[in-house]
């Protein structure tokens, strides 16, 4: 559990640096966590759509070419990380649009 104790400690230290040194408002942290959850949610949506599209592609290629393409090619964590990046970029894009409208 040592790494997780370290995560808790660095979170606390970061919180105090942000509030005491940088002057960030503690009330904004809740909003930031909400935005993080939104980016994560968007990433999950991208992940589901990506998985369905990839499975459809594999099955389609099998049918069209008569060759074997394995569904196990979907069993890879990198596409999950990329989906999360898609969700993150989507959220940032949406924020910049909202900032322009303000």
């Amino acid at each position: 559990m040592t790494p997780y104790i370290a995560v808790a400690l660095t979170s606390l230290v970061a919180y105090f640096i942000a509030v005491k040194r940088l002057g960030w408002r503690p009330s904004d942290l809740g909003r930031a966590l909400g935005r993080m959850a939104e980016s994560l949610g968007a990433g999950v949506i991208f992940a589901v759509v990506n998985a369905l599209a990839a499975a459809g592609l594999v099955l389609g290629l099998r049918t069209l070419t008569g060759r074997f393409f394995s569904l196990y090619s979907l069993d890879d964590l990198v596409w999950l990380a990329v989906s999360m990046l898609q969700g993150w970029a989507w959220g940032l894009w949406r924020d910049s649009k909202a900032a322009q409208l303000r």
Partner: protein
Amino acid sequence: MPSSMIVRALGLATLALFFLAAFTPLPAFLYEMITVPIHIERADAIVVLAGGGVLASGQLTDTSLRRTVRGIALYREGLAPLLVLSGGAGRRSEGAARSVLAGRCGVPDTAIFATSAGHTTHEEVAALQPLLRARGVRRLILVTDGPHMRRAMGLVRDAGFEVLAAPVAEVEAPTQPEPRLRLLRAALREGLALVYYHIAGYL
């Protein structure tokens, strides 16, 4: 905006699931749900399903090796007179590499039947059925990974055989977050495969 609330709720649910999976025994519980308990008695054959094939070096993959060793051990215990070593279709024959290993472990050539049978579990069982029937096999001990056993057993049973389960233990109840997440991944992957096999009408 309601849509952003839904996306946020989805993100929070995902976070909750992540922490539950990493820090509680939830993955082990799901894994138990998908696996089949060991049930071994004497049978006509021990059938070791394909598992990842052969590396470029000619060595069996870890999964294939674990399954093969389990099959050899069961044979050496005298549980069946025939050891069927299946292998996925491909340039290098997994079945042949497995039979070499079995021979070196003391299984006589006459007791080994190696075959390359299909790309998927469904194709593999369909290809094995007539071959096993021709050898008079009615009751068999099936060797594959724990999570894969339920799907494979269903197919073999539907093919008209009495099946006894000899799952290969992949992991034991982990206590660290990363192995727990790996266990959840294995359970989810096989759960999705089961759903796919049901939708495709294979089970």
